[in-house]
């Protein structure tokens, strides 16, 4: 679920960095004003706890495979959305730096996919709404599973949209969605079961932990405005940047127009939508064509950015020779510097 830099474009990565940074700034302000500083060490130590808990595996019955706790929903249940979002983001920073689990540019995407959806969508809209009082038992398990599944599916959808929007991977949207959603549905169910089990264990042993968190949170209805504003900004950013890409790509537009006119029923729903959305669709609709397109005699229908593909084979060979040589040179410079370093 952690995205890597290699599949991202700077536009998408940058936009998601902006969204994540905004959310972090908002949560930081919230945490500073809301919480007493007793929570400061608690947040830090619970972040470390997520790492520790992820080292403990359990076997999933019937499949022979094993899984571990993701922890996003558990943290949100224990800390409330704002503090939990910061903790999840900090865990992702450490994973990106030390375990190369997700890249640095992809950090924005990962924080958004893995932190925002469980903390600000699944928890307030599903968990808080449906777990009432000190219920416990079957209802709570069901609600926890639903929240975990919703968070993970939204996150997986985010991964798909960000990857396809970046255009480095050639995977068509539909195939990618079909690959990601069933897997994350299963993972979500497991995550929900485990989260519910841990929460109910903690409640039995130390009921005040779960209850106190619930009571110290402001009981006012969850403010949807910042959430919606954030979504809006992210959508605008991504849409705007993508449409700029798409409009700089006449091939893609031609294709999408041909495709849309070929299937008349598609024009009606998309016709009235915002320009950014339709060009996003145009961008997305061009991918399935890769499979069926016959090699044409004219210019290749590759990406407009594909400088490599447009050139003749002569320059390609030169590029390969040069590439190998440059790589050797770079490594040689490193090697020489290293020798000087150790001898000097």
């Amino acid at each position, binding site marked *: 679920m952690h995205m*890597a830099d*290699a599949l991202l474009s*700077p536009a998408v*990565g940058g936009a998601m960095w902006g969204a994540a940074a905004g959310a*972090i700034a908002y949560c*930081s*302000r919230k945490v500073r004003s809301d919480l007493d*500083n007793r929570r*400061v*060490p*608690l947040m*830090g130590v*619970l*972040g*470390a*706890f997520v790492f*520790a808990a992820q*080292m*403990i*595996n359990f*076997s999933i019955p019937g499949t022979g495979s094993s899984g571990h706790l993701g922890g996003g929903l558990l943290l949100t249940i224990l800390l409330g959305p704002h503090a939990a979002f*910061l*903790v999840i983001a900090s*865990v992702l920073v450490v994973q990106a*730096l030390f375990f*190369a*689990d997700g890249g640095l540019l992809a950090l924005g995407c990962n924080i958004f996919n893995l932190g925002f959806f469980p903390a600000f969508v699944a928890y307030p809209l599903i968990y808080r709404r449906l777990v009432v009082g000190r219920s416990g038992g079957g209802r709570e398990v069901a609600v926890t599973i639903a929240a975990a599944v919703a968070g993970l599916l939204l996150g997986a959808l985010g991964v798909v949209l960000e990857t396809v929007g970046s*255009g*480095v*991977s*050639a995977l068509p949207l539909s195939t990618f969605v079909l690959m990601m959603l069933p897997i994350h549905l299963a993972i979500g169910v497991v995550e929900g*079961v*485990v989260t519910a*089990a841990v929460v109910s*264990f903690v409640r039995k*042993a*130390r009921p005040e*932990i779960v209850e106190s968190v619930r009571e110290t949170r402001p009981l006012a209805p969850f403010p949807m405005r910042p959430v919606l504003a954030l979504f809006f900004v992210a959508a605008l950013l991504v849409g705007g940047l993508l449409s700029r890409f798409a409009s700089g790509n006449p091939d893609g537009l031609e294709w999408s127009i041909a495709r849309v006119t070929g299937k008349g029923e598609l024009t009606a729903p998309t016709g009235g939508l915002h320009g950014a959305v339709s060009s996003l669709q145009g961008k997305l609709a061009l991918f399935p064509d890769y499979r069926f397109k016959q090699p044409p005699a004219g210019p*290749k229908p*590759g*990406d407009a*950015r594909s400088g*490599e*593909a447009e050139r003749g*084979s002569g320059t*390609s*060979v*030169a*590029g*390969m020779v*040069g*590439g190998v*040589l*440059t*790589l050797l*040179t*770079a490594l040689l410079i*490193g090697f020489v*510097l*290293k020798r000087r370093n150790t001898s000097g």
Partner: protein
Amino acid sequence: MAKIETTFLDFTYLDLLAEGETAVHRLDPRAKVLATAVFIVVVVSFGRYAVAPLVPFFLFPAVVVARGNLPAGFLARKLLFVLPFVLLVGILNPLFDRETALTLGPLAISGGWVSFFSIVLRSILTVGSALVLIATTGFTGICLALERLGVPQPFVVQLLFLYRYIFVLTEEAVRTVRARELRSCGRRGKGVGAFAPLVGTLLLRTWDRAERIHLAMLCRGFRGEFHVRRAYRFGTAETLFTLGWVGVFILFRLVNVSAILGGWITEMLQ
């Protein structure tokens, strides 16, 4: 089991590497964070089919590894460990993108394979530069750089706290896993039924630890911020490092060094 412990050992080893005393280590963390950020953005800004223009970028990690006296073999092993995840998605490119992009004599290479190699190169470069950054700067250094660059303080405090206790709690988890391993024959006792109390107990202990830490911090006058001993300064060396590398990256972005070099070589051979 063995895997958990090697992951943990790698983690501590990367942390130790940051204790080095080379010119690269002594640079203000901000310089390294900025250079790495520009590096990654420039590398991923290339089009889907870029392969040759990416290669010169190996210069940056190679030079920093050398000047920072980092163990290249260890970093390469870490990279190999990470690659399969990216390859899993990248390997689908050749299936969906079958246009012939270039021909080498009788061999026709499809756009999918070209973009696949591009993805491999990108991931080596981006992951490699992140590893190099952490190995020369250390987590605390990076956090300080982030704070000076405007990241909100509660988040920086959170990062520092998290980092401080990862070692303590993961050791505890390793002990727990080992204890369970010794008591469970085959797969017995590894289901969700035993997992929840195990993790729940760890959580409760963590919670109590947080309260003790808080009391200890209050005793020492904690007011919501961390103090560090090492003072950094963004001086001439830092300016040169940042501007120099950013210049190099922009040059590599604009000029296809590999193609020019290759052009010379093939011309000379003819």
